């Protein structure tokens, strides 16, 4: 056991997979000596540079396409998009190519590729460097979508993503990289896709939270307990495949549901989860489910404005209390 940050846990996963399989490669903008915009690959250059770790030109379409072509022909690429926002430039390769090739070819190709990318606001990076676009990818058949919230989960899920034979969009919230530390076992472990995790047990309300919001939800839960409300927090960890059972079982126990994510509420993953629960466990619900998410607004630059747009502990507390 050793305490690791989120970024360190990801780095360990990458390093272990590099060593396990020389066909695992990672490329992206400034991932070499610079170590990536958020330092995830820092320190790997000396050992892996030019062999399994590669700096690319500033070319998102080519980066994503390189992952597709390399995956079809025997490598297991991890492509880093410096910010999730920039994947928009590579959408053809992600959505029309990576997601559909195997199906269109009648099951002939395998695409074992991962696109790792940081999401989210809170750093004053403004509207083009702060988005949470995970729902876009959940909507596309053929993509798996992972959104870890802790160092332990990040490591186990990234290793699974690398070993998965399908395109995986692996979304890392920027505020998680350096802030949260957690003990990581020294033995190897994997975390399967489609298995959520109960981050806090409770009996009164089911709070489904993703990524950074898990931590805001945990703080909100401490506060709510003072008001006599005992919240259960579920982190789905993978948005597709989604662990329906863990959510439904929790709702069966609590009868109440709140979903929280940083992305705007409208057409976010919360809509999917609420629809799933109302469709499959309607009779267990004691009150209408609630969604907490960002305002329907681009992320502004200034601190107070940004805080207004991004959901916080107070928004979660209010939503739970309003049930």
């Amino acid at each position, binding site marked *: 056991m050793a305490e690791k940050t989120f970024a360190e846990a990801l780095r360990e996963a990458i390093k272990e997979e590099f060593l396990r399989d020389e066909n695992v490669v990672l490329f992206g903008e400034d991932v070499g000596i*610079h170590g990536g915009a958020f330092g995830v690959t820092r320190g790997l250059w000396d050992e892996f540079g030019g062999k399994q770790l590669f700096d690319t030109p*500033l*070319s998102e379409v080519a980066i994503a396409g390189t992952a597709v072509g390399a995956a079809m022909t025997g490598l297991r690429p991890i492509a880093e998009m410096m910010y999730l*926002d920039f994947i928009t430039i590579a959408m053809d390769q992600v959505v029309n190519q990576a997601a559909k090739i195997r199906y269109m070819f009648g099951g002939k190709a395998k695409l074992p590729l991962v696109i790792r990318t940081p999401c989210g606001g809170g750093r004053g990076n403004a509207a083009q460097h702060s988005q949470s676009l995970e729902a876009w990818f959940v909507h596309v058949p053929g993509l798996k979508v992972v959104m870890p919230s802790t160092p332990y989960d990040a490591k186990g899920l990234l290793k699974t993503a690398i070993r998965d034979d399908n395109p995986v969009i692996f979304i890392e919230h920027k505020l998680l990289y350096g802030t949260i530390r957690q003990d990581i076992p020294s033995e190897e472990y994997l975390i399967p896709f489609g298995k959520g995790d109960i981050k806090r047990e409770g009996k009164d309300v089911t709070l489904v939270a993703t990524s950074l919001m898990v931590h805001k939800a945990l703080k909100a839960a401490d506060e709510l307990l003072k008001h006599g409300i005992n919240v259960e927090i579920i982190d789905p960890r993978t948005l597709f495949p989604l662990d329906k059972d863990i959510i439904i079982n929790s709702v069966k126990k609590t009868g109440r549901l709140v979903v929280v994510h940083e992305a705007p509420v409208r057409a976010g993953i919360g809509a999917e989860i609420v629809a799933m629960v109302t469709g499959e466990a309607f009779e267990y619900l004691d009150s209408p489910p609630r969604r907490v998410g960002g305002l329907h607004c681009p992320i502004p630059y200034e601190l107070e404005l940004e805080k207004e747009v991004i959901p916080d502990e107070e928004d979660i507390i209010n939503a739970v209390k309003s049930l």
Partner: protein
Amino acid sequence: MVELSNEKMVDMFKTMLKIRHFELRVKELVLKGSIRGGVHLYLGEEAVATGVCACLKKDDYITSTHRGHGHCIAKGGDISRMMAEILGKETGYCKGKGGSMHIADIDIGILGANGIVGGGLPISVGAAFSCKKRKTHQVVVSFFGDGASNQGSFHESLNMASVWKLPVVYVCENNQYAVSTHVSKSTSVKDVSIRASSYGIEGRSVDGNDVLTVYNTAKELIDIARQGKGPSLLECKTYRWEGHYVGDPMAYRCKEDVDKQKSENDPIVRFEGYMVNQKIVPASEIEQIKKETIDLVDKAEKFAHESKVLPVEKVTEDIFA
């Protein structure tokens, strides 16, 4: 060579100094913790924006980049409103909603800085198409970096501007780096201007730290564009003094290279030397200009500090027209 009046040269010198002192102040404020988000400084590259924008009219357009403060100042932007934006105030160019990477002043043709590398190039095609269609004789200049020249948007834009013969000049600021990546490791040609030939347009590479050369070359290309004779690509070779952003640890390059550039290839020192040698302006007046520039920056900072943040209720305004 175009004959430049002394007055025009002094104006250009003032612009370069304004950019220099504005950026030094922004850097100070970042280090003090007064500015959030990423800030990309234009220090060392002042001659490019200055030389190019000195050829433009007020109603000509530019598209800018994440490293855009210099373009904005050179195109006539108000440094008080810029500083207010960077400090997130409602008196700023974007009411504090955009910040450093999104400063825009459409009234004086600044179609925006851009957080997306290569994002401005296609927009410049549209602006130039509009100028041509409306027969206004306006010209568009699209600034972008060496890194951006590896984006598909660069290639698509140059091709389309060429086949439509649009009035746009593409100005590549080759400052040798895209974040940590040296241009030699990312770019298939030695001179970005070579890429012009793929699109059947004129391409030039010049010393981007020599403001008069930048001016003269840009003037020629902008005049050609204004006459309806089509687009061109001007590569200005320069050097990024700072890290990619303030706070960049810069493990990828050595301090000696940076120091050498600063001491031997400072575009402002070079221009100042020229002007004093040619007796265009006495050394004493230069000192006076420097003092006045710092006063202007002081005023801008004061204005920004004294301004308020936009009331949070207004955060969702301005999404739709």
